[in-house]
């Protein structure tokens, strides 16, 4: 069972602010998501390991340097930037 406390805790871990009046609705939604996953979990699999559904293993890159992106491009989606850094404002 998903509880209000679970939702509050997940919000805290995700650094999200959830208004009091939305807690019940979110708790219900989250329960539905978990139930959906349970349906999949309950499917009979005869104990087979589905970690690697396509049976792939050892997909590697070789250790060869590829040119990095231009700093401007890297920062282009940043909400705020300064001196070639991503800038994170302190909201507290």
């Amino acid at each position, binding site marked *: 069972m998903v509880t209000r406390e679970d939702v509050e805790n997940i919000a805290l871990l995700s*650094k999200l602010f959830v208004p009091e009046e939305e807690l019940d609705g979110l708790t219900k939604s989250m329960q539905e998501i978990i139930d959906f996953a349970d349906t999949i979990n309950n499917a009979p699999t005869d104990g087979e390991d589905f970690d690697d559904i396509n049976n792939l293993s050892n997909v590697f*890159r070789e250790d060869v340097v*590829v040119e990095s992106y231009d700093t401007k491009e890297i920062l282009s989606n940043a909400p705020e930037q300064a001196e070639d850094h*991503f800038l994170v404002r*302190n909201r507290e």
Partner: protein
Amino acid sequence: MSYELVAGFETHIELATKTKIFCGCTTKFGGAPNSHCCPVCIGLPGTLPKLNREVVRYAIRAGLAVHGEIAEISKMDRKNYCYPDLSKAYQISQLYAPLIIGGYVELSNGRKIRLHHIHIEEDAGKLIHQHGDTYVDYNRGGVPLIEIVSEPDIRSIDEAREYVEKLQQVMRYIGISDCKMQEGSMRCDVNISVRPKGSEKLGTRTEIKNMNSINNIAKAMEYEFERQVDLIENGGSVVQETLRYDDATNTTSSMRSKEDAHDYRYFRDPDLVTIHVTKDVVEEIKSTMPELPADKCRRYIDELAIPEKDAQLLTKYRRISEYFDKACEGVKSPKTVSNFIIGQIFRRTETEADKEIFDVAVTPEQLNELVKLLDSGKIRNNLAKSTLEKMLDSGKGALEFISESDMGGLDENALNDLCKQAVEGNPKAVEDYKNGKEKAIKSLVGNVMKNSRGKADPALAESKIKKLIG
């Protein structure tokens, strides 16, 4: 009551691969901010990480070097946390199936510090806190790390110090990292608790972070040990928390309160497939491993008759031991080679950094040649020593300074002549000796040595001179 310290280490080591763990960006230290980045290592949605083969191979080397078991099957997991140093809000790491299981580091007191496991993971970005805001540089984000997790087997500050030094030494030997604590390529978190001596039960532990040298680790542990003992003695109890060490004040302070104790919600990373390491790959990597420092040290002591203390100096850095190995080839007395290195050569490589690089003007082959001249009795120790100084000054070989006539023993007649010359040429010393000044004989022998260019046997010369003086 007396208390015992119990500590375990989590040691992060940056691997010296050319590229990051999941993309082809360079791992070079420094560089303009955010200039070693791409969509994969800044964690943009829709990108696909692909594991660097060399990271797995380096980690296997690390595992073999500490006697760990290489897992045939291992997997990558996501460790979820929200912090600006990690733009994806999760770190790709290993929890459920790490690459290396077990292993140990043996200390000089014979105790083995057991390792729980070693896993591979990505490093986070660098944060610069300024005026209450945070500036983020992701150049370090995605640099490959191994994390070596020990069991709580460490019982003293000295053991802690040696454990870190041994790890540093062996990881440098096998060439997987430069392990520079000041630059952050080796970082230690220490879990520490105390308990009454004799007790088997573990006390509540705290975790200390943010120590950038072995000395700081020792100081932080000392402080934390005293703090915990004080707490308990005064009827309090230790709270499980993460502490930050401040080397300016030599104190620890709370970094995270208990309320936001982490829940990382680990789960398998669906972007990355299973790592399957076959026995053949392990054997192949094993065959490329150098002789490890502990084995080398033992061999020097047992087979080459090098004193233990000297053997430790010779094996501290890989380059010194390789130099020594080469210089020893075919010589009768490895101890002589060792003495030249630890004596004259170490005087010219004074700092630890110099010793690590061990860039010496004289090649090991040149030293080998010099020692063989000494071995064969063609020259004497004094001449060898002074010649080595000249070689170190010039980078030239021994034969540049030793002529044919310097080599080979001095024949009897020549020695007789030289002794006669010394007696006749130094009447004052002869007089002094006759008047009972024993030491005066030394200056006469010195004269013979000088004129024979170090070839004369000083004991023989002394007896001849005594006879001459009568």
